[in-house]
């Protein structure tokens, strides 16, 4: 017969004559008590041993008990002092005897009550007498304290008295003991061998059925394993995906379009005057090669130029700024994805749109800036707009309040603002979900007639924009955007970042 090593050891250590407690088997086999217990039950299932359970009371001295064991029980000390004072002859004043016995505080009452109970003498009206025949040497309670300290068993009555006196505590526990059955004895007589402990479960073991007979070596399951090399979606990408999910859920359809585009779509269609400070090379990435687009939609170009020069509507005014087609033809890396909104609203991207519509994009934009902890030369802009017959500022507020609440940003405030392309315009402020600080979280407004009329849109369009990186820094608390975006990123930072969902 073969048995796993842990079971074999227990079987060999157990006796047929007398049940052996687990603790004893553990020290005999050099195995942990829990291993022995497990092995004993397995052996019992095989019918080779019987496991019995006994309740054992462990008696322990309390601190008070320990003290009396060392100093003597208070009543015994009182009796000794009483004898010294001659109380066996005639009653003596109790106060003097207590002082001589070095008793004070609660010990006085303890001494007096047990003194009488045990027949050491009598106490009457402040005087104390001692029984000369009493024998403190044979005080059962004093003796029991010593026996407990030595781990020897004591009489149940005495134990109960001591328990009542709070000199001992009693803990009951179950002790399992193991004894060989007849089958167990037979098996040992016939000879039992240990099966080998197995490190790794193998396909062969599964196929052969060998797994049923092997013992699996214990692993240290608390130890850390080597972390595998794994892939992870970039945290900023994941944040973009999350934003897209939210916007699609709110009924927005995605836009796409060129990164390198004419200034016409990037700025002129947006009613940005050509001498606007943001249109200098200091702010935008004009390209030197290529420097101009070949074609612009002629009718639209004319209408946009007219809006710049003359304004739109009965008493509209234009800008007092120069305007040339040459400038409109210039090619830039877009400074905002509102160029996409212009392409879609004009019908250039997907044909004429009838209200209602919702569109969005989460795409790269470019700014000629200095790279630092909070500024990138290129970043993702969340852009969205809603087209409908009649839109009010309240609709705008309702839409954006809903969007930001999806990211835990509540209490959005709307600061009246100026953009050349929207009116009314608002900067959006919200409360940082972690720091509680009020911070700018976007820019929004209703597109101006000077933007919409040339595009051929005759209903209302509200729009807003926000840097995705800003949202990420808010929701993740990142401090340096360069850690996240670009070739300077630390690969361990990307590996360690919490996933976004």
């Amino acid at each position, binding site marked *: 017969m073969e048995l796993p090593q842990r079971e074999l050891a227990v079987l060999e250590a157990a006796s047929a004559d007398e049940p052996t407690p687990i603790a004893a088997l553990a020290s005999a086999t050099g195995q942990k008590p829990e291993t022995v217990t497990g092995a004993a039950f397995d052996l019992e299932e095989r019918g080779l041993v019987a496991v019995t359970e006994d309740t054992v009371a462990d008696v322990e001295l309390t601190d008070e008990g320990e003290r009396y064991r060392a100093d003597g029980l208070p009543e015994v000390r009182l009796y000794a002092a009483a004898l010294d004072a001659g109380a066996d002859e005639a009653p003596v004043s109790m106060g003097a005897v207590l002082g001589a016995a070095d008793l004070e505080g609660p010990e006085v009452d303890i001494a007096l009550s047990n003194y009488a109970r045990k027949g050491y003498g009598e106490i009457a009206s402040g005087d104390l007498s001692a029984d000369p025949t009493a024998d403190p040497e044979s005080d059962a309670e004093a003796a029991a304290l010593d026996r407990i300290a030595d781990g020897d068993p004591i009489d149940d009555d005495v134990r109960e008295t001591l328990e009542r006196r709070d000199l001992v505590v009693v803990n009951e526990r179950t002790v399992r003991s193991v004894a060989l059955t007849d089958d167990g004895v037979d098996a040992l007589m016939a000879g039992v061998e240990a099966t080998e402990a197995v490190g790794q479960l193998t396909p062969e073991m599964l196929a052969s059925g060998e797994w049923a007979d092997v013992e699996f070596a214990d692993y240290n399951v608390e130890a850390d394993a080597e972390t595998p090399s794994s892939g992870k979606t970039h945290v900023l990408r994941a944040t973009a995906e999350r934003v897209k999910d939210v916007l699609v859920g709110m009924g927005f359809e995605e836009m796409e379009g060129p990164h390198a585009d004419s200034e016409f779509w990037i700025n002129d269609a947006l009613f940005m005057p050509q001498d606007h400070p943001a249109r200098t090379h200091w702010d935008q990435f004009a390209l030197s090669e290529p420097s101009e687009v070949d074609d612009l939609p002629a009718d639209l170009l004319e209408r946009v130029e007219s809006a710049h020069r003359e304004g739109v509507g009965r008493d509209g005014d234009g800008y007092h700024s120069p305007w040339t087609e040459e400038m409109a033809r210039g090619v830039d890396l877009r400074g905002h994805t509102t160029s996409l909104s212009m392409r879609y609203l004009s019908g250039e991207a997907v044909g004429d749109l009838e209200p209602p519509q919702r569109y969005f994009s989460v795409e790269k934009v470019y700014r000629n800036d200095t790279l630092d902890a909070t500024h990138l030369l290129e970043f993702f802009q969340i852009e969205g707009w809603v087209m409908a017959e009649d839109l009010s500022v309240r609709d705008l507020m309702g839409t954006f309040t809903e969007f930001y609440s999806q990211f835990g940003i509540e209490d959005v405030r709307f600061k009246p603002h100026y953009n050349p392309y929207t009116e*009314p315009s608002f900067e959006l402020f919200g409360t940082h979900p972690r720091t509680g600080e009020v911070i700018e979280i976007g820019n929004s407004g209703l597109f101006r007639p000077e933007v919409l009329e040339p595009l051929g849109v005759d209903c209302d369009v509200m729009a807003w924009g926000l840097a995705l990186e800003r949202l990420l820094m808010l929701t993740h608390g990142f401090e340096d955007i360069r850690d996240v975006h*670009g070739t300077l990123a630390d690969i361990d930072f990307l590996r360690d970042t919490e996933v976004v969902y």
Partner: protein
Amino acid sequence: MPVVDVDPDELRELTGHEEKSDDELKDDLFGLGLEFEGMSEDGEFQLEFAPDRLDRLSVEGVARSLRYQYGDASGIYVPDTNDAEWTIEVDESVPDERPYVTGAIVRGVDLSGGALESLIQLQEKLHATMGRKRAKGAIGIHDLTMIKGRSARSADERVSSPKRRPADDRAAEPRDDGGTATESHDPDATDAAASNSITYRGVDPNGDTFVPLDDDAERTPAAVLTEHPTGEQYADLLTDYERYPAIYDDLGLFSFPPVINGRRTEVTEDSRDLLVELTGTDQWTIDRMCNIICYALDARGGTIEDVTVSYLDLDVEKPDFETDEKVVTHERIESTLGIDLTEDDVLDLLGRAGLGAESEDWGEQGTDYVVEIPPYRTDVLHPVDVVDDVGRAYGFNDLVPRYPDVSTVGGRTERSRLERAVRETLVGLGHQDLLNFHLTNEAENYDRMGLSAGSDVVGGGEPATIAEPYSEDYTIVRTWALPSLVALLENNTHRAYPQDVAEVGFAAERDDSNTGVAERRTVAGAVVRHDASYEDAKARLQVIARDFDVDLETPATTHPSFIDGRTASVVIDGETVGVVGEVHPEVLVEHDLEVPVAAFEFRLDALAD
């Protein structure tokens, strides 16, 4: 955006609201669109705001807006002006590049306390914004007593009582006063206008000399541009000028716009009478800048006096305080704000916006408002701007948000869904997803990859090039993504391997399309570990080809970034769309890499249905 320093004590004084605490003022200012940025060292509010309300670039203008907001003032206000005693003669020598001039005389102004500082700040902020860094308009302010007009009359002959304009109570009712040309004035005024004059003219850069501000030496205009710090700062504005703009009085050159004034006419806290002159490239622009200055000085107790600007063919009176008119419908106001208002509500709100207004009831067709816009406003182009003013006066933050009752169907573009799916496949293969810059430089994109621009291999296209980059590190748009991956690996050689990485991103190169740039999404991946080989990269392509149900072939090719004999074209469904191979040791060593790299890059659209 402009930041203006405003002393809260001055604000309390000018608004007459001494009881307002700093915090209350900050809240009120936020409602106007002025964001509190912090305190200056002198205990002034630093207020940031968008550049539409340039009239609020000074404490006087901010105070005026607050008084309207508090209901202490209502309706349009246009200061009275006295008749012109001074003429600005525009000489035919004036440079063609800067033909326009305007101005005003302001008398009896009190510049003590913070007033002078505020005026200087206003001037600077107007230069920075509407003046387009002085290119479009530049302001010079002078102590009038230091200027000697050509046919000066003595001070006591000056007309001492203000000549009223036709409508006396302008705050209460709209004005009908369009004309500013000399013809509309009586002959006496014309006489007065002729009595003192200064001349705007062009000068030889190396001709006359003057002592500029903050200086003690006589210099020619050309010398100022090279020797004086302010001159150096604005020298670029005059690069193409043959003659430089200058203003002369009887004593000579005293102003060199748009660069610097002369020291002789320097304004101090004791100056009482001022000459304001502006030159520029657009008459409307400098007239409005002049109006904003005049309104601020009016708030400091100054009396505005017209100046005759005498162009070769036309005399005009300045400042131009003509008001503009917009008609806005009641219906438009209600639909934009999303609330119901009575006619009285609207009239009250328009008044609190500092606008003049009269309603016109068209019965069935609703109500219109004829709104009069004060001459310091530069931002009212269309009736929507009036609607915005009504909303601000009402308090936008008092509006209750509502989710629009508009139903649409959301969705993503096919490309964006494909990108996500490919990224998921790569992450599933154990690649760390990367997000690199699209901007790079020629060294990273070509040289360090062993590649040259204009070669017929993946990444070898000509780059879209930034005209005037700030940084030498970012001068072109990347033509392929692999250099970004390798650059990231270079920055992470101290980190644990394997470093399998991938990016589904953007790349572009020049072509002959309309914009001249062919943009594409590209899929780049690298297996980076001690035993990486061609097979690892090819294996990953096989997984991608299987997942996206495309046919993959890898015929041998050469590419300067890869080892010959271990490089193949990525051919998907019969079309060559990329490259796969073991990165060349020269490229690895160039990037301090001590492990082999097997990599691939191909067009994302090759995987599309």
